[in-house]
């Protein structure tokens, strides 16, 4: 029973229960009722169509980033720089919009160019971490982290410098773009079916790349044994770079959608931590593309649901992060315990 899918499913449930247990204890320790907190988060995320639409708004970038990270994880890379790649996607998209601000081209074309520009920007930023890794021997974790900080500084510099609002620059970001530059949204809701479609398409493509193509097999070979893959004739450094580029492009798309469909301008924390959250989702689903959609949706719901906490219960909304982190931690611990247990049996 402990073997196979059912067994691992049971262990995942144990991890889920443990995570909720620990977070409940934390809530009790600050004098809050866990049940009320969970109820508020639940209602706050799926209580109404409008709220669920907000969950989807959060789900789209998370799924895009997760899709990209599945590729870098497959090639054995810890692309922590994904956060900065989202930011550069957003910056590039903003740049394209600003370039065409007075243009008479059809808006659909400009939006498409802007999103492609965002993907390109994310990919180029990712290639920096990739080049540092493949040619400079700099571990992608440290290269990526450094580039993340630089990208944040770049955003703030642009908002307070060259791209500042007429009059006073402020943390609220650049001047909003005209409505024509927005991805079409559902009436009265903030979610755009286009962005949802792009994200779902991305995860499907990534799934097929990893499951059924020579490219995906080579990526996996590079990830599992770099040296042996090279000796087998795979141009390993190229494949490492490809995976950085693909992940960067998808992260860039996430940033582009944040600009084109959510904020309609560049704001200081445009990536909203989706990059790091995507890393958690990828770990939680054990790098299996098939589970990306439900888990990303769950994490997005936690994010949106927790927004209600400060208002209703005077609790900080970072509770969602605590819950997500604890969950991933327990999945790792329970998985480790299962392997140890199975080995002994």
């Amino acid at each position: 029973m402990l073997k196979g899918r059912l067994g691992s499913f049971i262990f995942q449930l144990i991890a889920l229960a443990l995570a909720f247990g620990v977070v409940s204890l934390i809530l009790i320790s600050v004098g809050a009722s866990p049940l009320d907190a969970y109820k508020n988060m639940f209602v706050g995320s799926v209580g109404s169509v409008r709220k669920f639409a907000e969950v989807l708004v959060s789900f789209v970038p998370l799924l895009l980033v997760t899709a990209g990270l599945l590729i870098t994880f497959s090639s054995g890379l810890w692309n922590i720089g994904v956060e900065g790649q989202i930011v550069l996607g957003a910056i590039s998209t903003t740049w394209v919009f600003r370039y065409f601000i007075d243009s008479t081209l059809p808006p659909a074309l400009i939006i498409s160019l802007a999103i492609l520009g965002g993907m390109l920007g994310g990919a180029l930023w990712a290639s920096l971490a990739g080049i540092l890794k493949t040619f400079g021997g700099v571990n992608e974790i440290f290269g990526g982290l450094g580039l993340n900080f630089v990208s944040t500084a770049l955003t703030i510099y642009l908002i307070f410098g060259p791209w500042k609002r007429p009059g006073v620059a402020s943390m609220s970001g650049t001047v909003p773009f005209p409505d024509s530059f927005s991805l079409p949204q559902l009436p009265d809701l903030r979610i755009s079916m286009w962005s949802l479609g792009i994200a779902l398409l991305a995860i499907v493509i990534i799934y097929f790349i990893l499951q059924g193509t020579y490219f995906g097999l080579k990526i996996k070979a590079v990830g599992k044994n770099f040296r042996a893959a090279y000796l087998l004739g795979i141009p390993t450094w190229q494949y490492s770079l490809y995976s950085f580029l693909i992940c960067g492009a998808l992260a860039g798309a996430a940033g582009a959608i944040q600009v084109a469909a959510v904020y309609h301008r560049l704001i200081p924390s445009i990536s909203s931590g989706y990059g790091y959250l995507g890393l958690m989702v990828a770990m939680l689903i054990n790098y299996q593309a098939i589970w990306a959609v439900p888990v990303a949706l769950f994490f997005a719901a936690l994010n949106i649901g927790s927004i209600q906490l400060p208002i209703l219960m005077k609790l900080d909304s970072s509770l969602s992060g605590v819950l997500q982190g604890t969950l991933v931690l327990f999945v790792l611990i329970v998985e480790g315990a299962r392997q140890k247990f199975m080995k002994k049996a």
Partner: protein
Amino acid sequence: MTVETILIGLAGVLASAAPIIFAVLGETLSERAGVINLSMNGTILLSAMGGFAVAYNTDNIVLGFLAGMLIGALVALIVAFTSITLKQSQVAVGFVLALTCRDLSYFLGSPYMGVTGPRLHAIQIPILSDIPILGVLFFRQDIITYISFIAIVLTWVWIFRTRPGLILQGIGEKPAAVFIRGSNVNLLRYIYTIIGGALIGLAGPAFSLAIRAGWMGTISGLDGIGWIALSITIFGGWNPARAAFGAYLFALLQWLGLVLQPVFTAVPSQVLQVAPFPLMILTLLLVNIGNAEWVERTLAAMPESTRKLFAKLLRAMRASPPAALGVPFERD
């Protein structure tokens, strides 16, 4: 700017490096034993918040520091248990903890936002503090800065001069060889990870009870320090003295950024603030590039004298990690 203000500024550099020194020394011990504690960024935030909260509630600053160390040790215990006992990826566990502890500090710390609490004050050491130049630099600091000086020396002596330190060097290099020499490798790994974690946990209160007194949540400017400390550990080549040098260099750069801002008005302040990060990438590049294959090939194609010169340069900069870093140890 007078000599006096420069000296006071440099003394400030020594003080503001103190928390990073603790973090870097702790990480060095942990990695020497073969365990990467990637949770550092979250640990520092959580211990800063926890240390401040305990000191505030008990009005006892020592308890605040102890609470920080306890938090660091507990987080390190989780890293040790999942990676040593359960053999899960150290990077994965550490990364998750880095994020979770950060969010937990924001969650639990919200009641303490902006509250004024106890803080350390400078202690002038009699006689020594009157020595010209050195007195201002070294002997008018607060207690935690003095402890940071001592910690550097102690860690260095421990690793390179003592019998247990020799064993620690061996564990990072070849655990099986330490095992046949009669040591319990995994127990020692636990101990060093936890001690290292406690040192990292000292970094938090060293911020929140000394140089950046108080808890300011997301705007306390501590998010990111842990990641920098991790790269300084690499820059330090797992040697406490070189790592401390890296920490001081970083603090100096930050200070220069502040001081030079009025001088270079054309350079936006945001650029100067992030200057340490590209520099960090650059130093990592210099430290690591000698290991890259294309460098080796390019060198081979050069005439002999040039080749020798470059090879020497690269070797001088290179830092190799402990060979068994991140590798679990099993008896059979």
